[in-house]
């Protein structure tokens, strides 16, 4: 069985924000599914850990939530990105890309380049 990696809270929060940004309002299960799908099962979430993260994001004002009917007509809580959330996502995305770019450059370094 493939080793499942624990996802750090911060990364998870970023994924939540991006998912909501792309797909619009979603309930908890929906978010978990999308994250799993996109990360290609490489990153299988211990799905329950999503809820404390959602609460935290909501307290920070990045997302907002309300009850609504789900696909199978159950009551579910739908999460939606706020304007502050979009800004947060932009900022985080920028930071992440910068970090990734730097790391990538380090991996591409060959002995010759440093001579």
């Amino acid at each position, binding site marked *: 069985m493939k080793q499942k990696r624990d996802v750090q809270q911060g990364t998870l929060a970023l994924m939540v924000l991006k998912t909501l940004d792309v797909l619009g309002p979603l*309930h*908890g*299960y929906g978010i*978990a599914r999308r994250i799993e799908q996109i990360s290609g099962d490489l990153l299988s979430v*211990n*799905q*329950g*850990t999503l*809820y*404390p993260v959602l*609460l*935290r994001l909501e*307290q*920070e*004002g*990045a997302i907002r939530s309300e009850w609504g009917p*789900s696909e*199978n007509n*159950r*009551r*579910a*809580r739908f999460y939606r990105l706020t304007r*502050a959330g979009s800004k*947060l996502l932009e900022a985080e995305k920028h930071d992440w890309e910068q970090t990734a770019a730097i790391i990538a450059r380090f991996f591409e370094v060959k002995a010759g380049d440093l001579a």
Partner: protein
Amino acid sequence: MRALNRLLTRLFNFAIRRRGDARLREEMESHIAAPTEENIRAGMTFEAARRHARLQFGAVDAVREDYHAEEGLPQVENLLLDVRYALRVLRKSPAFTAVALLTLMLGIGANIVVFGVLNAVLLKPLDVSDPQSLYQIRHKQWMIGRLLTTSYPAFEDFRQRNTTFNGMAGIYEYSHAALSWRNAVRQVHGDAVTGNYFDLLGVEPELGRFFHAADEHGPDSAPYVVLSDALWRNMFDADRSVVGVTVELDKHPFTVVGVAPARFHGTERFVCPDYWMPIAMEGADFPQNRSSIDVMVIGQLKPGVTPQQATENLNAISTELAKEYPETDDGQALRLIHPGLFGDDGDVIRGFLWSVTALALLVLAAACANLATLFAARAADRNRELALRVALGSSRWRLVRQLLTEAVLVSLIGGAAGLVGADLLLGALNRSQPFVGALTVSVDARVYLAGLALTLGSALLFGMAPAWQTWQSSPLQMMKNGPADRIDLRRFALRDLLLGAQIAICTLLVTASLVAVRGMVRALDAPLGFQPQGAMLADLDLRQEGLAGHAAAEKTKAVIEAMRSIPGVTAAGTVSRTPFTGGMHGVPIFRPGTTEFKLNNSALAPYVFTVSPGYLEAAGTRLLGGRDVSWHDATETPYVAIVNETFARKMWGETPAIGQHFIVSGNLTEVVGVAQEGKYHDIEESPQPVVYVPLSQNEDSGTIFVVRSQRAPGEMAAALERALSGIAPNVPITVESWPDSLRDELFPARAATVALGVMGLLAAMLAVTGIFGMAAYSVSRRMKELGIRVALGARRTQVMSAAVGRPIVLLGVGSAVGLLSGIFATRLLGQIVYRANPRDPVVVGGTVLTMALLGIAASAIPAWRALAVDPSKLLREE
């Protein structure tokens, strides 16, 4: 911003106890329901589908925990739980809690009172614009007779020639007058100050204006007076229209220009002047007289100038002046001190207060040791409970935190009670004015902070002992053995150390209080050279009558005659200034034949008292030989004087003094009598030479009437007023018994005795509770063992030594250590009590006796319980 937002939400949730339990449960339900349905559609059974979905979701409880942690403030919630639990535990043992609270209340309360006084006297800066750069100029050597700095002309020279001060102000502190306004007359005391005084100190008036340097144009040019807030309220009913009003000071008109703010009372902390007036109003002679050294000088250093540089600068000027005016200026070296505490008395006051603070902290340390013992014993009793909690998965840190929470809680409550008690006590002290002069001790923010620091500090001190014990212990051991067996009675334990330390501190404090009491008794017994008992001081200002010289003397004589005729009066006389009233300074006297009356040529600098005939008798000062002065000694007859023994011995050794001559105030004077030795400036002075000159040959403005009579002062005042109505109508009279007016002089000894007595008492109480607690605890723990011993035929002495042997041994060792440290702390005690001697056999004996009695009192009940053990009953019980 985001973090703040989140914190606020969490605080809000915490405050209203909102819990999203229902919401989370519903969300989880729906989260699990969706994949369950999908799985069923994929062909699983309901159970398998649901199980799969749950597995995917993860640990529900862990999620819920995390969710709650995000939602509220878990640390605070835990803390609240701890506090609630601690409160329950404390309520369960009310006796223990009460003892702990009382101990802390007394310990912390005593410290807050002491710190309050320390704060008011030493720590709080003077209420002037720049207290740090404000200095008072003093002579290098503390010479009696040189309490003040300079003469007024010399002050002017210093002011003009120095290059290191921004400004210098001169103060004449002994200004006094009868203030009359409308129909009221009142004796008032104030400061005569140079015009720049208020500007130099940077004080703003509460009402009206202050006078300034520009108001002065030579003698008597500025008839202005600034009232103190207290005088304004008492005499003028806080009337705001008083500014501009003309009042009379000794029959001279003065204009009230302003009122000083309530918090400003000059540069001396213990003195409250009633008024300030320009020094230019002190008379025409004052600005020219180089020989009367009456001015106290304060100055503000220029920025960047060190006190060292300023001192060198002043000394250079002093040397110059000695060359220019060799007759009057002696070129003494000067030094700078911060004003506020009676000049050099400041060192004494500082030493006293810091030492008392140190002793108060020792009391608190003893209290903490006491509480540490109590708490450690309790923690040991609660071993089973604590072990159970560890076994159930509580972390050790959590247990320690619980115990510390209890300690902090107890000390916070105790500290709060102590603060309230201290506040009340200080309020009562302020009202009853036991402090010299006008010091008000307020409980300000600094005192509150100190109280909080002491509270938390002591919580840590005594909370550490049980916490450390718990940290060390293993739950397995704790569970396996009953709590009773776990205590190793043979071993030297932390508790023993704490009790020993506590007893040592207590012994030290008991020693200190006994030393103080001895000092007090000595001060009261010291021969004063006069008999205040049965004498009364009447202050009536005849200057108001506008008399001077011979006429004034005649008036005084008439008043004395009138006083003597009052029934019950045995003697009456006047003196220029009664002993112990401060401001006394030596007057240079010269041997006959001296031509140059320079200070350096003087033979002695005795105190000179101007007295009327009958003063010595009224004061109860014995005349050892010769005669009293008489009204027949007049300016036309040869000048005469009475000297005291020290004067006679210093001047003429073994040769009889009567008939000898010396020169005082420029007059060749013959000694006609020798009076007994006494104390004049303070109780602790060495024998001082004294000259009594007759009133009829000397003009002296200040006169105090001393009346010897057995009648009460109130009655006497009325009788005096009646007797004087014919001679000096409408002269305000204040009568005070002499012992009452001496109260201030005994203040240091009394303060020391009270402070140390209270601390000694507190320490003794702590020692009793400490020994009692330990003995009672060990007896109750060892009841069974003692029962078995008795059953096996142990003798009573053996039972006794088993029961209370250890506390008694600790008492002995602790007392010995305490006595030794008392002897090493002689210097510390010397700051509090004059000539403290902890080696004094009375003190050592008293301490040993006190500690022994305390030990007996504290261990009597436990010992009795141990002896009363009934083995049959005890063994049947378990």
